[in-house]
């Protein structure tokens, strides 16, 4: 692990800003392990992030990195990928980033199917701003903007992305770190838009307000509530109550990748020019 850190992280930027016990470091570790396994040249990787605690990940990794505006990482990434398709583009977003302010960009990225990989850090809370509820906070939870408990229903990010047309959708957790690496590798290898939702823990802004005594307890919650997708299929529905599936949730190769389709546009335009 140490070697991988040296190879892919900007060690001079350590220590990172994340709180002790935060899940973001685990996700970053899983990600660079995935890149190592994929064998990508660091010069050929573009890492794009939004704003939030999760958004800070790009500053710590030794690639072409850009920390954009809140919610808009996918828009920037779309420009990068289209203008230089050779680059391997990864997009990092928080839950507020991806499905509140950036929800519109997320569904359209899913629909277009441009070959990029989005990693969504779902800690069920707005971390950076100090614990306001997000579109993925469950009902009856406490947040600084929900002192009497949340009333809003929550989004299931993975299902949302499947519905919007993403061609590879998976869910991992910060507890199942090795699985997460596998999912990122598969997502990156998938020719099209891939989404990896990562259930992660925010002990300071979510856990503390919602009866979790320690980061370890939050990881345990993930272990107990994350059910392998394959296993979930065989379980009675009521046993899945309050739980969530993990692993590869959806994959399709029927929908063409965006730039492949765009190649047809270029061809048609050139034929018209000639005639």
């Amino acid at each position, binding site marked *: 692990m140490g070697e991988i850190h040296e190879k892919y992280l900007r060690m001079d930027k350590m220590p990172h800003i994340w709180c002790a016990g935060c899940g973001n470091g685990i996700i970053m570790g899983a990600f660079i392990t995935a890149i190592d396994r994929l064998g990508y040249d660091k010069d050929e990787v573009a890492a794009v992030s939004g704003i939030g605690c999760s958004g800070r990940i790009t500053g710590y990794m030794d690639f072409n990195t850009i920390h954009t505006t809140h919610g808009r990482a996918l*828009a*920037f990434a*779309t420009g990068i990928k289209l203008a230089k398709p050779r680059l391997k583009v990864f997009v990092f977003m928080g839950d507020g980033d991806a499905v509140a302010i950036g929800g*519109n960009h997320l569904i359209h990225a899913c629909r277009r199917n441009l070959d990029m990989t989005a990693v969504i850090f779902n800690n069920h809370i707005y971390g950076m701003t100090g614990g306001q509820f997000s579109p993925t906070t469950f009902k009856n939870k406490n947040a600084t903007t929900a002192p009497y408990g949340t009333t809003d229903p929550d989004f299931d990010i993975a299902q949302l992305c499947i519905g919007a047309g993403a061609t590879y959708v998976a869910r991992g957790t910060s507890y199942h770190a090795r699985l997460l690496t596998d999912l990122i590798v598969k997502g990156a290898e998938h020719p099209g838009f891939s989404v990896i939702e990562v259930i992660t823990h925010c002990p300071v802004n979510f856990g503390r307000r919602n009866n979790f005594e320690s980061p370890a307890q939050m990881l345990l919650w993930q272990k107990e509530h994350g059910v392998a997708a394959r296993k979930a299929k065989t379980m009675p529905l009521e046993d899945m109550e309050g739980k969530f599936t993990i692993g590869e949730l959806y994959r399709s190769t029927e929908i063409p990748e965006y730039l492949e389709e765009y190649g047809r546009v270029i061809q048609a335009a050139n034929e018209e020019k000639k005639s």
Partner: protein
Amino acid sequence: MAEAKLLSGNDACVQGALAAGVRFFAGYPITPSTEIANAFARELPRRGGIFMQMEDEIASMGAIIGASCTGTKAVTATSGPGFSLMQENIGYAAIAEIPCVIINVMRYGPSTGLPTSPSQGDFMQTRWGSHGDRPVIVIAPYTAREAYRETGRAVNLSETYRVPVIVLMDEILGHLRERVEFRDEDLVQEISRKGPEPGKPFLPYENTEDGVPPFADFGTGYRYHITGLIHDETGFPTNNPVEVDTIMRRVNGKLDMHIRDIERTRFVDADDAEILIVAFGSVARSAHEVVRTLRNEGKAVGMVRPVTVWPFPDEDIRTAVAGKKAVIVPEMNLGQMVREVERVVAGAVPVHALNRIDGLLVTPHEIRDLVEDLL
């Protein structure tokens, strides 16, 4: 060159951008700028470029910044409501110093306003629309021919100074079609941002002598970090007051260092004029007409027309108004550029605003009446 074409202002913008090497457009349809998107959709794929219709104007701005990170020259086009949505990312491009061009074909606002009517209501917004102090260059053509040439220049200035450049059109200018005779001086050059010097350590936000750091395109072997957080010379976030002060002064001051290259002001019979009209965009067409007819009648009227409207041409205006009897500033808004003129003139000469906000162009007739009153 000497070639004649029938061109609309919007089409001329597209042709100028393409001539300057633009190969990426992202946008969202909005009247009266839509023809620009239509033309790019037709023209870019023929040149191996990318046309992208995004989900909104925020995304369009994000996409052109992203494309520009790879070294691709990128443009978007919009109008009022869309231009408002772009402001956060325009500020991002300014502080992250990523070249990009925004064509804003002004329509009547606020809000949905009068979608098909012209206006100059965004004059101040182009300069101050984002939060925080940020630099910007704004160029306002007044004919289709100039829209061609100035959009090309906008692309080149953006590349040269690593700054967002706004081409400020309006509905009249966008939609009018006129015969354009291109001459040699209309030839648009292709200028690209300067890259890192080989063999020298690369500092992405270096305090260079010319105020403009070199730009490394993504995917060329320089792995560095871009952020909208205030950053030091290495590109990483800082809140050290000395470093914060340094970058903010450099980024906001770099255009002043090259002001002669950026400014472009046109004078029509200004030297011996008693009354001077200061106008830009389509209103300057009316003003030009007034100067022509009144000069024929032997009346001493002239015009100063800022083509680069931001940074505001303080020196050109100050020199031009010296000793005049009065200055008139006609605008299709409630008085925006007139504030700049008043600031520069600083009481030396009386300044008269002439404002029209009924969705119609200020006519030569109205300007003429005021000139004659003042003569």
